[in-house]
């Protein structure tokens, strides 16, 4: 068993270098396809992060009656915080609301008219952050039924539109990635098929001298794995090389996004190594299979 393994590995190595032109062409195709796949993956990850950044802005704002008891407020806050749909609850007092209004006016370059007011007309409010924007209605209805809530600000239409837009964009992104993935799959498998086709004579001779299927198949499968891993290594090298200048260029954009560079690089590494190895092995397996079934 071990000697068969070593035999297959050494044959794979020999096969790779003795057909260097074909092997390197297959490796180059593999590299380019893996780069294409991983670039789309990275773009997709940034895209998803942008979507969740936008979605984070969706919340339910409930204006409160004036002069409510502190205990009623605390109680409502606690019940809200206990809801599974709710991510965070923030209490905005009347004074805070006025301060924010003034800030907003001055940011817009308009005069502050509030000194002309007798008292503060703005209500205190609860700003509820949601886990998923689609839960907007549940939380809004819950708040609307509360006695101390004066009014739930109605942003339902906007939220609905945002949710359907983000859902559409997510599905579109997944579909696009699936299409790119299939293209990569077919191109890589066809390239490996061509490389195997170029060695049809070798396979023919093996069959005629009485080599068993395993002895014919495994060297090619290992060779496919070699092409895949080599392609993956080169792709990762290119990505690492490109990461530094690219992130410096994009830093302004990315810094506002809830993007986790560590988890993305881990995912991309797994993606590139996994698809390289998988495509190489599958490509070689199905290509040799055509010659074995008689």
């Amino acid at each position, binding site marked *: 068993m071990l000697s*068969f393994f070593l035999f297959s590995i050494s044959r794979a190595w020999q096969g790779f270098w*003795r057909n260097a032109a074909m092997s390197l062409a297959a490796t180059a195709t593999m590299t380019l396809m893996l780069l294409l796949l991983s670039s789309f993956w990275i773009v997709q990850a940034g895209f998803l992060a942008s979507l969740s950044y936008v979605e984070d802005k969706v919340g339910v704002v409930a204006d409160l009656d004036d002069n409510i008891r502190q205990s009623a407020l605390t109680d409502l806050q606690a019940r809200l915080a206990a809801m599974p749909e709710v991510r965070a609850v923030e209490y905005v007092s009347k004074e805070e609301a006025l301060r924010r209004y003034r800030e907003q006016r001055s940011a817009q370059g308009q005069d502050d008219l509030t000194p002309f007011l007798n008292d503060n007309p703005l209500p205190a409010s609860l700003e509820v952050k949601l886990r998923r924007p689609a839960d907007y209605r549940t939380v809004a209805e819950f708040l609307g039924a509360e006695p101390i809530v004066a009014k739930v600000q109605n942003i339902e239409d906007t939220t609905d539109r945002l949710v359907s837009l983000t859902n559409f964009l997510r599905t579109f992104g997944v579909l696009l990635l699936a299409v790119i993935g299939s293209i990569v799959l077919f191109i890589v498998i066809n390239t490996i098929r061509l490389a195997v086709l170029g060695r049809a004579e070798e396979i023919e*001779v093996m069959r*005629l*001298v*009485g080599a*068993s299927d395993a002895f014919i198949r495994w060297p090619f499968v290992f060779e496919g794995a070699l092409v895949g891993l080599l392609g993956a290594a080169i792709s990762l090298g290119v990505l690492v090389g490109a990461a530094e200048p690219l992130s410096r260029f994009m830093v302004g954009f990315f810094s506002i996004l809830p993007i986790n560079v560590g988890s993305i690089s881990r995912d991309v590494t797994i993606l590139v190594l996994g698809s390289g190895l998988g495509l190489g092995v599958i490509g070689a397996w199905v290509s040799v299979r055509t010659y074995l079934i008689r």
Partner: protein
Amino acid sequence: MPRGNRAGGAMVDPRRPVLVLNDVTKTYPNGRDALKDVDLVVPEGDFVFLVGASGAGKSTLMKLLIRDELATQGTVTLDGDDLARLPRRKVPHVRRKIGIVFQDFKLLPTKTVRENIAFALEVTGTSRRRIKPAVNRVLALVGLTEQAEQYPKQLSGGEQQRTAIARALVHDPRIVIADEPTGNLDPLISWEILQLLLRINELGVTVLMATHDADIVTALRKRVVALEEGRVIRDEVGGGYHRAG
């Protein structure tokens, strides 16, 4: 060279058939009968010429023997194994009992003479320490010891065919099947190849050779099986290429 010793040392029993075709018909999916009711018994140690025009069924017969194709009707038995009943995983073992030689040699251009021959043993799982002596033995048998480290394109046609014969022999086959082995060679070299096949036959290996070469067949007076339109029209010992008279 004493008769009765196969290269591998096993005794040859001339009454024991190494190859039996019993009422074999091969119909291709397009409906054409490539072989029709063929009966053929080849005893161990025999030397048989298979003659016939192109399309007479020689190639189909060869394919049946190496189980590249299965007979539509009838049985093909090689060294006691009914090829139609053989499980797929046993096919390689039966092929190791056959040495195959082709008109176009089928040598691998990226391997030397020695590597081409050793390849047949490597891919059937023979241990390294048994490969080298076996390769040296057949190299000596076909007279290519000097050329062992050369690549096929550095060799003459005759030398390439001798390499292919060495590769066919390295497994110690019970039968060598040669499909027009002299088809690409000039007459003098063809005779050299024939001498080699006769010598191998003398060592006890059964030889079945398909050929178009009337001179060789007529001169050697061996057993001749003639095919025409898929049928055996003649099977005689000591016959010529054409029907006598």
